[in-house]
């Protein structure tokens, strides 16, 4: 099955990004496909490479980058939501790209399921 994933909350404050990551990783392990993850609302804050969490904690953005590199996942950050929150190409972690909401709608049209992680 092809899953599209929508992440609506930022890292660390809220579990949404962690749960989305674990869901995506597990779905892939079980033989499903996760071609794209879309980041909206404060979810765009998951895409910054400037975050430096303590060594003994997970690094949320780096974890997404690694998963994307291993499995060819398209990590898309909404441009309008990103501009509001100071996220631009200069701060993006590897594997993330900035694009429009059309990329979210496409997931709903093309994939078997669209799963939302948010508040």
């Amino acid at each position: 099955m092809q899953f599209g994933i929508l992440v609506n909350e930022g890292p660390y404050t809220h579990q949404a990004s962690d749960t989305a990551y674990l869901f995506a990783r597990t779905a892939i392990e079980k033989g499903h496909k996760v071609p794209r993850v879309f980041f909206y609302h404060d979810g765009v804050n998951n895409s910054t490479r400037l975050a430096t969490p303590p060594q003994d904690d997970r690094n949320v953005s780096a974890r997404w980058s690694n998963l994307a590199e291993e499995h060819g996942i398209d990590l898309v950050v909404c441009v309008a939501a990103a501009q509001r929150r100071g996220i631009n190409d200069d701060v993006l972690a590897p594997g993330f790209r900035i694009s429009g909401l059309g990329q979210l709608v496409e997931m709903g049209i093309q994939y078997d399921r669209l799963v939302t992680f948010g508040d």
Partner: protein
Amino acid sequence: MSDMDEMDDGSGVVKKFMFLNRKAPHGTVYALEGLEVVLITAAFDQDVSMVFTDDGVFQLMKGIDTKGIEVKDFSKTYRALEGYDIEKLYVDQASMDARGLTEDDLIVDVTVLSVDEMANLMAEQDVVISF
């Protein structure tokens, strides 16, 4: 805005998208940014429904004035939805009752549904996105 131009993902597939609006309009950004997704989805010629439930019913209230709280007033957008062929607007009866609201308090024409009717409508959808 170029995002608002007619869009096509190339597949010609039309799916039923439901947008579930659960939050008051200005306490969080969800209503404002959620509307953007609704408009883009309509631009992709999809079958769009909007549901207002819980505090989401406050998004449609008449007489919203945001001057005092210095945030953008986007309530006019709801009245413009018809222009984007978004005409399926539903509100939850119990949410209206709990907040002392009737259809006369709302800025647009809506269909009021019971919980059971809402559940049936949701079951018919291909994609449900909740804000």
